[in-house]
């Protein structure tokens, strides 16, 4: 019996080693292709950045560049284009590498190839969502503080998480993960938040709101005293 076990182990080991041996050139080809495209991407993006700075691309962009700098202060249009070129090459390297893994993995690589655009789209969505969440929450925080709102931080965090949740749902939807659960979950979450806020105002603070409105309606027009401090 032990002989049969030993033989069985030997044969399975042999099969695994054989499989690894057949995949090894493919893995090597993947690494080579990836590194090659990485280097090529770096080189081409450097050349593109040099050409764009030579053409004074950022200055020519004018207002567009200013608007972009508001969202991502350190990024200039030429830097952004350089990065896009670089990452295009990196993705191409991954695709070529996966294809080079071998004909036996053609089904896998075919599926991966078809999925790559979705991953890229999702990554862009995630990046844009994060940048937007950071920008908008900071805007809300600073504006809130300048308006003397004591709950400025709470407001800012609320806005940030709303955008992040929305982004997360969009990313999952784009990746076709979770199917209808994501849509349903997101709908329930957002609906729940709005419903909770409505209840909080409608039931919890009903008297407070009505008193406040009555007070506002009954208040005589306020005479604003002249400002004694002039900032400008």
């Amino acid at each position, binding site marked *: 019996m032990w002989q049969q076990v030993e033989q069985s182990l030997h044969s399975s080991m042999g099969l695994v080693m054989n499989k690894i041996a057949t995949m090894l050139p493919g893995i090597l080809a993947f690494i080579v292709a990836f590194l090659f495209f990485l280097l090529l991407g770096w080189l081409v993006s450097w050349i593109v950045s040099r050409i764009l700075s030579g053409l004074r691309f950022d200055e020519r962009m004018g*207002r567009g560049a200013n608007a972009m700098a508001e969202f991502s*202060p*350190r990024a200039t249009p030429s830097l952004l284009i350089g990065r896009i070129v670089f990452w295009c090459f990196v993705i191409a390297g991954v695709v070529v590498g996966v294809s080079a893994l071998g004909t036996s993995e053609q089904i896998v690589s075919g599926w991966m190839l078809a999925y790559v655009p979705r991953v890229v789209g999702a990554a862009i969505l995630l990046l844009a969502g994060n940048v937007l969440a950071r920008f908008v929450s900071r805007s809300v925080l600073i504006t809130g503080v*300048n308006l003397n709102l004591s709950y400025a931080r709470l407001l800012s965090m609320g806005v940030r998480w709303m955008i992040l949740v929305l982004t997360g749902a969009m990313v999952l939807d784009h990746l076709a993960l979770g199917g209808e659960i994501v849509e349903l979950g997101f709908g329930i979450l957002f609906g729940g938040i709005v419903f909770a806020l409505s209840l909080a105002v409608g039931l919890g603070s009903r008297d407070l709101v009505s008193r406040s409105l009555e007070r506002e309606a009954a208040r005589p027009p306020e005479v604003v005293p002249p400002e*004694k*401090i002039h*900032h*400008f």
Partner: protein
Amino acid sequence: MAAVEFTEETKQQVERIGSADVVVGIAGAVSPEELRPRAERILQELGSAVSSLRFVFAWPGKAPASPPGESAADNPALALLPFSPPPQAEVWAGVSANQRAVLGLAASLNARVCIVLGSDLAALDARAIQLFAYAVLDRQCGLAMPVYLAARYDGLLNSGILSPLSRALYGRRIRYPLAFDFAASGALCGALSRSNLAAENAGNALLWPVTVASTQNAQVQVGQVHIDVHHKVATEGLELSAVLGQLVGSLFHEMDVCASHWQRIRGSQATPVWGNAGEGSDDAQPIDPQSMLDTFLLGSRNLDEVWRLILPPNSLLELRRLTRLAPDQFRLPDGLWASIVYDFALAWRLRTLSRGHLLGALTPLYLGWAASWVREVSSLSNADAEQRLEQLARAWEEKKPYLLSRWRWPDRFNP
């Protein structure tokens, strides 16, 4: 370099007038029916002192009833010159655009002096015109800036940031570097009218005459004249953070553009002042700055993550210490305030964060300084408050080496 664009009609009027000795330009829309009699009265009041000079009064708007360019009434020494107003821009940028247009017209007319006045016409009187003309024509000043009659709590943004920063950078002790009224010599008019026109956002660029005068030629003499004028600034609907963003942002922009120039300047020069300083009313009523202090404290509780990106650890520590003080003991030291603004200027240059956010985050700090200032000068007379301003400006100058180090080595020098 780009020049101010005028319509064909304006160019024809300039050709018709030919030349002028003094151009008095209004940087905003005014009624020609109001302007003409006042201009004539001023010339009468000035009398023989200006009898040999030819005056042109320019303003953005439409021509009066009599043909433009022709001498008004029976006075051959006076001509009226309406011009098409530049495209509408933000509040202060609109004033600057009109000021540039007036200076451009003066350059076209080869004027010996151009006097630019605010559109509320508060400074349109014989005394102010005489003083400005005297400073430029008789005392050979390239630029004459005003010293307004101000109370302790007036123009705090100017007193707290614009004036001391401009003085520390360009070495000219000018009380109001961003003024509604000023005068420039004919030689400087062209440079002033072209300043910032080639910038990315030229439509909203402000005109900083002192900066232009200092960077054009270090030999240009800058003087000041006392004028008893109090401009009415329409503040309704204007948010402090928006105005602070526009004015301070513009000064930071100038700072970035002229970095190679101001880095060479050490200390400051006194500027000659002409005219008599008026007696402002010493309003004895104390003012409670608690609301400004509250905004500062709210900012320190909430904006820590933003301030940490801009300010070095030392300043943050100092600010944290200040928040623990009792309201009546709250004082923002001059040196700390100067270094805070310098750090914000550096963050503007490095684009550490969005520039809108940067200037928004400066507002609570400015209000903290304003609260400290109001509390400090409440017991002082106007004259003593001016002395205190001088002390503040010196502190900014003393902190300039800090700015230079941070500006040149932002990563290495971070105390």
